[in-house]
C-alpha cells in the first residue's frame, strides 16, 4: 500500500462520485445565478424590516377586498393573491406600505426549472434524488478526508493556514483552494445531505396545523384590524405567508405562517385562536434551503457559485495529481533477486518516485540490473552491491506510509554480502523536521554490519534539481558508472573556473601523511569554511573534492598524500607561487559554522580537521568551540599542533581532545566522546551544534554512539537533531 487510509478514502470517494459531482457542481454554478437574476427586480420595500402587519394589512384589505393570500419570498418581495374588483384573478408584487402594484410574478424561468430538476433528481425522480443525496454525502466525506489530509500535510491543525509547499500547479492549487472553499463546500454538502434525508423522510418533520376550538370563537368585541395586538407585534419580515379569512364568517380566520410558528387570528376580535411552533427540524430545513441555494443573500449566492466552481477544479486537479502519481509507479525490468542495484523509495504522494525513476532509467540504460521498489518491500537482495534509498518525510518527521515498516524489515533481513549504500532525503526547509526520516534511515543502515557507506547522506530541498544533480554526480563518481544526468536535473556547472595561487605548502616524508596547502583565490571570491573545493587534476571529468578551511582569507586544504593519488599527487606537486587553474568552489551551506548556536562541538578524524581549522580561526565571539579529533599518532597530528595550540592560547578554542589510534591508549575519537557523553548531551539540550567531518567509517561509529546518547539522555532519536541541523555531517 503506497498511500495512507485518508488519502485512499479521499481518492476512492472522489473517483466513485466524480461524474455526479461534476454534474451537480456544474448545475450548481448555474443555479446560483437564479437568486441573482431574481434580485435585479427591485420589489423590496425600503426599511422592510420595520414594517408591521398592523401597518400593511389594513391598507391591503381596503385596496383589495378580495385578497386571499399574502406571501413574502426569500428576496423579501411581497406578493398578494386574490381577485380584483372585476372578479379577475390577481397576483402581483406590491409595496407593503401603499398597496401599490410594483410588478407581476413572471412565470418561473423554464431554463432554471430544467436545471433545478437535473440538479435535484437527474430527471429520474426518486432514484435520481437518492443518487444526488448520496453524492452530497460523499462530498461531505471528501471534504472531511481532505481536511485531515491538509492537517497532516501542514503538520497539525494550528498550522492549517500556514504556507503550502508548491510542488506543481495542480497540487498547489488543489490544497490552496481546498483550504479556502472548505467551509462553503462543507455547508453545501451538509445542507444537501440534510435536505435529501429530509426528502426521504429519514429526518422526521411532522407537519403541524392549528387546531381550532370553534365553540370558543367570540364575535365581540369588534376591533379594527390595525388595533389587533398580534398584527402590531409581528413584522412583515417574520412572515412567510398570511392566509386571509375565506369569508366574513366569524369561523373564518387569519392564518399567519411565520418563520418559526403558525398563528391563527380571529378576524373580528383579533384574538389568537391557536399557536403552534414548527418543529426544529422544519426550521432547520428552511435554513438549509437558505444556505444551500443562497436565495436570501446575493453575496452568499456568489460564494456558493465560486465554491461549486472550485469543486470542478478539484475534480480536474485531483485527476491530474492521480495520473501523475500513477505514471511514477515502478515497472521493473529485472527481479529483486537478480538485480545489482536496488533503489528503495519512501514517498507519501509519489513525487519521489519521479526522481528515483530517472536514476533507475539511467542504470538500465547503462546495462546494469536495477530494481526499484518502496521501502516497505525491503527484503534480501542476494545479488545487490548497491542500495540507494530515496525518501521523503511525512508528518512530524515520520516515515511516509510506504516506508513505515522499513526499520523492522531492515532488522529482519540482513544482507548476506556487503552492500554499499547511499541515502538521499527529500524534504522542504519550510517544515521543522527537514528530511528527518532520511537521516533516520541513514543512521539505521550505518548500524548494519553488511552496510558499507558509500556517500554521506545528501538532502534535496524543495525538489532542487541542483541538489539532486550534485548527488547524482557524486554517486556516479563513486560507483564509477557514468550517469548522464537528464537535462531537467542537470546541476549548473560553474562556467568560470577559479584560478588559485599557491601560497604555502607543508612537506611530508612519504605517502600516508597529511600536508596543508594554502591557496589564494582571486580578490572578491566568496567562500567560507565548510565549502568544498573541486579540483580537476587532469582537466577532464574526474573531480576531487576537498573541504575548505578559511584561514586569513585564504583557502587552506588538509590533504593526505596517497600513493599515486590523482588529486593529492597533483596538489603535492604544486610549489609556492604556482597556479591551480582547474578548480571551482562548491557551496556547502549545510556545513557552515552555525550563526547563533553555542556550544559547537567539532568532531573529525584525519584530514577532516580542515574545515574546523578555518572555523576556529574565524570563530564568532560568544560561541564556545570544542574540538575532538582523531589521528594515527603524534606524528600525523604534528602538522596541526602549532595552529591549535595558538587557538587555545587565544581562547578561540575551549577544549581540545586528541585520540591516537596507533599510540598510547589506542583510542578512537568516539571513545573520547563516549567518555564525555554528558557534555555532548548537554550541548544538544542547550541548542548547541555537533559537526562531523572525516571518513565515513568514523561517521558510522560516531553516529551509533550519538544515537545511544540521544536515546538514553534525551529520549529522542538522533535524526530529530539532524533534521534541525543540530547534528551536521560532511564525510567522505
Amino acid at each position, binding site marked *: 500500500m503506497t498511500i495512507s487510509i485518508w488519502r485512499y478514502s479521499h481518492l476512492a470517494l472522489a473517483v466513485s462520485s466524480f461524474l455526479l459531482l461534476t454534474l451537480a457542481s456544474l448545475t450548481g454554478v448555474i443555479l446560483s445565478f437564479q437568486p441573482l437574476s431574481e434580485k435585479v427586480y427591485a420589489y423590496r420595500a425600503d426599511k422592510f424590516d420595520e414594517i408591521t402587519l398592523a401597518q400593511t394589512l389594513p391598507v391591503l384589505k381596503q385596496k383589495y377586498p*378580495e385578497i*386571499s*393570500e399574502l406571501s413574502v419570498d426569500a428576496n423579501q418581495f411581497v406578493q398578494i*393573491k*386574490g*381577485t380584483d374588483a*372585476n*372578479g*379577475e*384573478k390577481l397576483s402581483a408584487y406590491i409595496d407593503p406600505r401603499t398597496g401599490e402594484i410594483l410588478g407581476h410574478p413572471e*412565470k418561473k424561468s423554464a431554463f432554471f426549472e430544467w436545471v433545478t430538476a437535473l440538479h435535484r433528481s437527474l430527471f429520474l*425522480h*426518486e432514484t435520481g434524488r437518492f443518487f444526488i443525496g448520496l453524492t452530497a454525502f460523499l462530498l461531505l466525506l471528501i471534504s472531511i478526508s481532505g481536511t485531515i489530509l491538509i492537517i497532516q500535510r501542514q503538520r497539525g491543525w494550528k498550522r492549517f493556514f500556514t504556507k503550502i509547499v508548491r510542488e506543481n500547479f495542480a497540487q498547489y492549487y488543489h490544497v490552496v483552494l481546498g483550504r479556502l472553499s472548505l467551509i462553503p463546500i462543507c455547508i453545501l454538502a451538509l445542507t444537501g445531505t440534510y435536505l435529501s434525508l429530509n426528502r426521504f*423522510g429519514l429526518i422526521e418533520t*411532522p*407537519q*403541524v*396545523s392549528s387546531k381550532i376550538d370553534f365553540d370558543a370563537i367570540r364575535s365581540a368585541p369588534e376591533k379594527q384590524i390595525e388595533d389587533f395586538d398580534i398584527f402590531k407585534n409581528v413584522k412583515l419580515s417574520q412572515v412567510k405567508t398570511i*392566509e386571509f379569512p*375565506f*369569508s366574513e364568517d366569524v369561523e373564518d380566520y387569519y392564518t399567519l405562517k411565520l418563520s418559526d410558528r403558525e398563528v391563527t387570528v380571529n378576524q373580528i376580535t383579533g384574538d389568537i385562536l391557536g399557536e403552534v411552533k414548527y418543529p426544529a427540524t422544519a426550521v432547520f430545513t428552511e435554513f438549509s434551503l437558505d444556505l444551500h441555494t443562497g436565495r436570501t443573500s446575493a453575496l452568499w449566492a456568489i460564494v456558493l457559485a465560486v465554491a461549486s466552481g472550485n469543486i470542478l477544479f478539484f475534480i480536474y486537479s485531483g485527476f491530474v495529481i492521480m495520473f501523475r502519481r500513477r505514471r511514477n509507479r515502478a515497472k521493473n525490468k529485472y527481479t529483486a533477486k537478480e538485480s545489482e542495484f536496488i533503489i528503495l523509495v519512501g514517498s507519501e504522494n509519489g513525487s519521489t518516485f519521479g526522481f528515483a525513476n530517472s536514476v533507475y532509467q539511467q542504470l538500465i540504460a547503462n546495462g546494469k540490473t536495477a530494481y526499484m521498489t518502496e521501502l516497505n518491500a525491503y527484503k534480501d537482495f542476494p545479488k545487490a552491491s548497491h542500495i540507494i534509498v530515496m525518501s521523503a518525510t511525512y508528518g512530524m518527521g515520520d516515515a511516509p506510509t510506504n516506508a513505515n515498516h522499513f526499520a523492522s524489515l531492515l532488522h529482519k533481513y540482513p544482507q548476506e554480502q556487503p552492500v554499499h549504500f547511499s541515502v538521499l532525503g527529500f524534504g522542504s526547509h519550510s517544515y521543522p523536521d527537514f528530511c528527518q526520516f532520511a537521516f533516520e534511515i541513514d543512521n539505521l543502515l550505518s548500524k548494519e554490519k553488511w552496510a558499507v557507506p558509500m556517500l554521506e547522506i545528501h538532502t534535496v530541498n524543495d525538489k532542487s534539481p541542483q541538489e539532486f544533480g550534485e548527488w547524482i554526480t557524486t554517486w556516479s563518481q563513486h560507483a564509477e558508472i557514468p550517469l548522464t544526468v537528464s537535462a531537467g536535473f542537470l546541476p549548473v556547472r560553474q562556467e568560470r573556473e577559479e584560478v588559485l595561487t599557491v601560497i604555502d605548502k607543508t612537506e611530508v616524508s612519504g605517502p600516508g601523511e597529511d600536508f596543508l596547502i594554502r591557496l589564494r583565490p582571486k580578490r572578491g571570491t566568496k567562500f567560507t569554511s565548510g565549502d568544498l573545493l573541486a579540483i580537476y587534476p587532469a582537466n577532464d571529468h574526474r573531480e576531487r573534492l576537498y573541504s575548505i578551511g578559511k584561514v586569513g582569507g585564504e583557502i587552506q586544504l588538509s590533504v593526505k598524500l596517497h600513493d599515486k593519488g590523482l588529486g593529492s599527487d597533483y596538489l603535492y606537486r604544486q610549489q609556492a607561487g604556482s597556479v591551480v587553474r582547474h578548480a571551482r568552489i562548491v557551496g556547502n551551506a549545510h556545513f557552515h559554522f552555525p550563526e547563533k548556536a553555542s556550544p559547537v562541538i567539532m568532531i573529525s578524524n584525519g584530514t577532516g580537521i580542515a574545515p574546523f581549522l578555518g572555523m576556529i580561526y574565524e570563530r564568532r565571539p560568544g560561541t564556545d568551540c570544542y574540538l575532538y579529533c582523531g589521528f594515527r599518532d603524534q606524528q600525523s597530528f604534528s602538522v596541526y599542533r602549532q595552529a591549535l595550540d595558538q587557538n587555545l592560547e587565544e581562547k578561540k578554542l575551549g577544549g581540545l581532545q586528541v585520540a591516537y589510534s596507533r599510540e598510547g591508549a589506542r583510542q578512537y575519537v568516539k571513545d573520547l566522546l563516549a567518555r564525555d557523553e554528558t557534555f555532548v548531551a548537554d550541548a544538544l539540550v542547550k541548542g548547541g551544534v555537533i559537526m562531523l567531518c572525516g571518513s565515513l567509517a568514523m561517521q558510522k561509529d560516531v553516529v551509533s554512539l550519538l544515537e545511544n546518547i540521544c536515546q538514553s539522555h534525551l529520549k529522542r532519536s538522533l535524526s530529530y537533531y539532524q533534521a534541525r541541523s543540530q547534528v551536521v555531517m560532511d564525510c567522505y
Partner: protein
Amino acid sequence: MSNLSKAALFLMVLTFASPVSTFAQGTGTSKYKCMIQMTNYMGEGAYVVISLINSKGAYDKTLYVLGSDKKWYKTLKEWNKFYAKKPSNISAITGASVTGGDRSVNVFEIETSKINAGYKLRFESAVEDKNYNVKDLEIPLTTETLSGKNEGTGYIRYVRFSPN
C-alpha cells in the same frame, strides 16, 4: 323599457366592455371562489384538476387545473384521457400546484343551468411518486354543496366555495 330588458341591455354592455365574458352564448354563468385546503402530506406539490361530470358519469368540462407543467398531466390518468381526446385551451384556468398543508383559492365559472341538474364536481389529484386519486372529492353540483364545506378523501382536506 321593462326592467328585464334594461338588465339585459346592461349585461350586453358588460359583455362587450369586459374582455372575458361572464356569459357564453347567451347562457348564464356564475363565478365561484373555491378554496382547496390540503392535508399535511409529505412530498411534492399536488396536481389537482376540477372537472364537471355529467349525469352519465362522463367528463363534461374542465373547470380548473392546479399545476402548470404538462408533463405531469398524464399522472391524472382519467382526466388526461378526456383531455387528450378533446383538447381545449386551459391556459386561462391553470394555476400553481399546491403542497401539503397549504391552501389554494381560485375562481371558476359554472353555467347556472347545470346547477341542481344532476351534474357533479370532481376533484382529481396526483402527487409525484405517490398515489393518484380519481375521486379525491366528488360532490353533486347543487346549491347546498356550493355553500357548505366538503371533506376530501386524498390529499385534499376540504373544499369550500363562495359566490364571487
